[in-house]
Structure formats: structure tokens, C-alpha cells
């Protein structure tokens, strides 16, 4: 009896010890993983950030906090290169794409969520099938068509492709979001004598504002992010977008201007990352809702 009593607390104690040790290692490896991953993520970002403030005779593209810091690269970017026009071009294309695509997608998404009409099922199938066709599938045709229409190097053609490419999927997401707005709201408004337009504009629309913000971000981002189409359809250097233009700083292996590239990279990445973080909470829920809804 005595023996057993002596053993019991000891074994409990060692169990507790092993649990504590187990917890320690679990926490240790968890934090180790997170810290290493954070370093891997931050390393290239910091290199680019710091290089933007180095003077032009930088020897290597590395993380080096030493040396003189300067803003001269940003000045050179706008005085000696076409970066200013590239930025403006990108804004023109992105903003037009955003405005038009958001309007078109919101209207179509609303209709598919709220109306029953002849051919609805058939046309929804059309949307799903079109959604599967990658815009790239028409790459060669875009080039030929642009040649034929004299649209090579013009923004309207490029912008139209961006808009058209984003419509199928975003309409689908928008429809999913509209579906989440209770139908009773429409019904009661209709009983109060509100017309179609009024129901849409002052009752349903205010409730989907977060999704519209997300749609706007995406529609704005896709032209900014795109390299392929812009490189394909814009031929003169002064008409380039930022993505195509920035690449000209580094694609010549003999004469890489990494400091100019880094400065230009910061100026485009910073506002977009800021917008991204601001709208993040909206689109994560939106994507998950859209994803589970198909």
C-alpha cells in the first residue's frame, strides 16, 4: 500500500513533465517554422525595398543596410525614363476596366439572382462554359484582330479584352453574393410600390457594397497585374503599362538598372498592397462563399 502511494504521485509528476516538455517542443517548432517562413517571405521584399534607396553604382542585388541612402532614383524615374507615362497608362486602362466591368457584372449578377426569365438556365450554362475558356485561348486571334482593326498599340482594344475576360467568373461570384441578400426585402418593397429600379438601387445595392468594393479591386488589379496581353498588344515604349515597362529596366543583362527597377517596383507595389490589406476581410469571405456556392 505504502509503496503504491509513493509511486502514484511520482508517475503523475513525470507525466506532467513529459506533457510540459511535449508542449515546449511543439511551441518551439511552431515558432521556428513561422519565423523561418517570415524570413523567407521578407528577404526578397526587403532587398527590393532597400535597393530603391541605393545610388546607381550598387554592386549586387543583396540585403545591405549600409551605405548612403538617397531618393535620387525616384527623381530619375520621372525625369529620365518613361515611368510616369507607364504609370498613367496603367491607371487609364485599369480605371476604365474597373468602372465598366463593375457596372456590367453588378447588373448581370443582380438579374441572375433575382429574375426568372425564359432562357435563364440556358444562358447560365453559357456563362459557365465561357468561364472555362481561358482568355489565352484566343491569343493569336487577338493579335490578328488588332492588326486588322488597327488596334495594335491602342488602349481600347486591350481594355475590352480585360473587361470581357473578367465578366464570366465575376458575374458568377456577384450572383452568389446577391443570393445572400434576403428576398423578403424585395417583396416588402414591391408591396410598398417600389419599382424594379428602385428596389435594385436603394434596397439591394447598398447591402452588397462590400462585394462591389472587392469586384472593383479585382477589376482594377487584373490590368495592373497582366504582362502577357499588354506586352502582346502594345508596341511602342511610351504606351507600355508599368508591368511591361519595368521589365525593360532589367531585361538587358549587360545593363541592368536594378535601382531604377526597385524604385519603380515600390511605387506600384505599395498602393496595391495597401488596397489589398484594406479590402482583404471582404474578399476572403466573398471567395469562400463564392467557392462553396460554385
Amino acid at each position, binding site marked *: 500500500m505504502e509503496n503504491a502511494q509513493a509511486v502514484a504521485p511520482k508517475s503523475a509528476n513525470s507525466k506532467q513533465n513529459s506533457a510540459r516538455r511535449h508542449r515546449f517542443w511543439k*511551441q518551439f517548432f*511552431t515558432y521556428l*517554422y513561422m519565423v523561418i*517562413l*517570415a524570413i523567407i*517571405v521578407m528577404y526578397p*521584399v526587403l532587398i*527590393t525595398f532597400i535597393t530603391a534607396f541605393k545610388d546607381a553604382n550598387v*554592386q*549586387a*542585388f*543583396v540585403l545591405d543596410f549600409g551605405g548612403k541612402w538617397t531618393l535620387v532614383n525616384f527623381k530619375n524615374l520621372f525625369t529620365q525614363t518613361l515611368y510616369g507615362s507607364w504609370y498613367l497608362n496603367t491607371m487609364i486602362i485599369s480605371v476604365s476596366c474597373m468602372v465598366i466591368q463593375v457596372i*456590367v457584372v453588378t447588373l448581370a449578377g*443582380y*438579374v441572375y439572382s433575382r429574375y426568372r*426569365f425564359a432562357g*435563364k*438556365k440556358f*444562358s*447560365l*450554362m453559357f456563362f459557365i462554359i*465561357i468561364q*472555362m*475558356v*481561358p*482568355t*489565352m*485561348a*484566343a*491569343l*493569336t*486571334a487577338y493579335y490578328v*484582330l488588332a492588326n*486588322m482593326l488597327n488596334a495594335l498599340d491602342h488602349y481600347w482594344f486591350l481594355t*475590352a*479584352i480585360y473587361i*470581357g*475576360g473578367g*465578366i*464570366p467568373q465575376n458575374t458568377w461570384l456577384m450572383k452568389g453574393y446577391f443570393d445572400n441578400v434576403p428576398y423578403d426585402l424585395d417583396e416588402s418593397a414591391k408591396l410598398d410600390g417600389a419599382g424594379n429600379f428602385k428596389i435594385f438601387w436603394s434596397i439591394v445595392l447598398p447591402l452588397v457594397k462590400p462585394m462591389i468594393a472587392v469586384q472593383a479591386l479585382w477589376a482594377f488589379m487584373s490590368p495592373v*497585374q497582366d*504582362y*502577357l496581353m499588354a506586352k*502582346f498588344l502594345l508596341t511602342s515604349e511610351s504606351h507600355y503599362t508599368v508591368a511591361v515597362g*519595368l*521589365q525593360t529596366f532589367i531585361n538587358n543583362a549587360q545593363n*541592368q538598372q536594378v535601382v531604377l*527597377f526597385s524604385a519603380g*517596383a515600390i511605387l506600384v*507595389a505599395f498602393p*496595391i*498592397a495597401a488596397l*489589398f*490589406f484594406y479590402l482583404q476581410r471582404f474578399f*476572403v*469571405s466573398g471567395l*469562400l462563399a463564392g*467557392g462553396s*456556392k*460554385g
Partner: protein
Amino acid sequence: MQKKDAKKAQRLSIIPGLGQLYNGQTIKGVLFIIILLAFVAEFIFGGISAFANLVTLGSVSMEDNSLFMMIYGTLQILLTIIFIVFYVANLYDAKRVANLINNDKKVSHTFKELGASMVDGGFAYLLTTPAYFLMIFTIVFPVLVTLLMAFTNYDFAHIPPAMLLDWVGFKNFTSMFFLSSYRATFNAVFGWTVIWTVCATTLQIIIGIATAVIANQNFIKGKRFFGVIFLLPWAIPAFVSIMSFSNIFNDSAGAINVQVIGLWNTLVPFAHIAPIHWMTDTFWTKFAIIMIQGWLGFPYIYVMITGILQAIPDDLYEAATLDGATVMQKFNKITLPTIFAIAAPIFVTQYTFNFNNFSMIYLFNQGGPGDVGANAGGTDILISWIYKLTTGTSPQYSLAAAVTLIISVLVIGISLIVFKKTHAFEMGD
């Protein structure tokens, strides 16, 4: 009210408008007849020659532009399809309205009523028209042109209007699969495309899931801080990151060779590593590209999985703990199945995205180094090969179109399977 014969109405509508007139919808009937006449007139005065030109692609060089003929022909096909859709709708409409009349439902007869019903029922059509218009002219139409182009001999030796184009049947496809020079290139490019897609996407999914599971444990402090850092690769435009990496992996001045390998050699002098030829050795370029895509792509998966994990109820885990389940058992039996059930479509779209991830391949090393023939570099995937075939000094448009078709069929096929599996087609209502 006089009963209408629905069958008869539909039969009369074999000539659009007559069935509607029979139903007493004068305005609609007249409108439909006008549409019919307009299409017939267009077909007689333009359509027939457009179709004929599409078949011959012209006979006199310098005078006939084969390319324009092909494009007008495609437009005519589209127009004809739209008319056929209208025609079928017209047949159904006549029958539907006749049945409505028989059941004493309201039917619009006058212009005013028609206008009102247009605003009411037509609201839907009116608001979706811009979407259809844009999709047809920026996706459907160009895809059709590409489809046709793949069966011609359009290349640097046949540039209209100086030269005529000809239909060559499946020659572009057969030469890709059977002609030795093209076959070698196609096999090399296609093989690497598949390896790239599978490795890069799987890597980003693994890192994404691991990070979500690890970073979601309750005891972790500074979740917000780590969350922001882990999202950075998604928040920063991909082209900026890829170009930065292209500098970082530079053979002589990049951070990996100069700083990381330098640091390793200082810390672990007995395991000395020589600088790696990231940009001039195909194997190392491929290795770097896959790693970088892991960096770029994991945050998206991480965010999605985090959302899913937070939706799994805690009692599920508590019940499992009470039953004596180990950590690994809980992960294998609860966490993973839930993730795959919800996120499978997200994973598949990631695979199809990387299959066509032009930016990653082209911005890192322009598809190089090396050469596998027919303009393709050692790390070119199909989409960047198409780009080079189209924009190179001796463009091969028809071959590019053929490769494009192959890509599209693959991507659409995979998407169709996924859509079927996720029952998206049943979401019709």
C-alpha cells in the same frame, strides 16, 4: 375568350411572327417578321458571299485578303447562330403565349402593354445584354477565329494580302505530333509544362496547408503580425516579385549567390557550396521557378484554408480527444478531409492557373536558358511557346493557334470534370 391552338401557333411560327399574329400579338408579330426579313436580306446580300469566301479564302492574291475573309466569315457564323437562337425562342414563344391565352393569363397586345412588359420582364434581358455583348466579342468571337486559324497555313511565308491562305486540314496538328522536329519540341515543352504545373502547384498547396494548420494553433502570440507577413506575396503584384527574384537569382550579382551561399559558406565552412548557375543552367532555372511559385502562391491557399479551419467546430476535436485520438489522427481524420471537401475546386483552379502561368516563366528568365527547337527555350511552357511563335521574327500563327487549341481543350476538360464533381451545373436556379 377564344381558345388558341398552341400546336398551330407553333407551326405557324416556322415563319417567325405568324404565330404571334395568330395569337393576336400584332406588334410582336410584325417585329419578328422585320427581324426575319432583315436577316434574310443580310444573308442574301452579304452572308452567302461571306460563307463562300470562308470556304475558298480568296483566289486572287493582293486583291483577296484571306485573313479578312476568314474574320468576316466567322462574324457571319456568329450572326447566323444568334439568329437560330432567336428562331428557336420564337417557336417556344408562340406556343407559350397560346397556352397563356388558354389559361386566361394576361398577354400584352398593344405597344404600351408591350413596353410595360418589356420593362418588367425585359428588364432581365436589358441588363444582361452588355455582359453578353462583351463576352461574345472579346471571348467567343476571337476563340472561333483561333479555332479556324489552326486549320490554315498562316505563317511568316503566307502573310495576307500579299499571299493567300489555304485550308490545310489537320496538318498543323499532325506535324506537331508526327514531324520529327516539331514533335521533339512539343514533347519537350509539354513534358516540362506538366512537371512544372504539378510540382509548383503541389508545393504551394503543401506550404499553404502547413502554414494554415501551424499558424492557427491557439497559443500563438502575434498572429496578426505573422498574418500580414504571410499575405505579402499575394498582396504585392506578382510581376514585381518575379522580376525581383530574377535579380535575386542573378548568376553574378544576385543575393542568393552572393549573400545566401556566401553566408552558408561562412557558417558551415566544411560543406562548401559553389555559386549556382541559376540563369544559365536549365535544371537550376527550373528548380528556382518552382520554388518561387511556392513563395508566390502559398498565401492564397493559406488564407482559404484558414477560413475553412475556423469553420470546423471545436467540439469535433474535443470529442476526438476524449476518445483518445492523437494529434496526427485528428489531422488525418478531421482536418484534411474537411479541407479537401471544401477546397478541392480552389486547388484545381490553381493547377489550371499554373498551367498557363506565363508571367512566372517569361519574366524570370524569358523561357531560357537553352533551346529545344522551334523558338522554344529550355524552360518554356506551352503558353510562352505560343507567345514566341506569334511574336518571333518568323511568326508561325497557325501552329500557335493549334497549340492554343490543345491547351484550351485540356483546361476546359479539367474544369468540366471539376464542375461536374462540385455540382455547379445544378446551381442553375
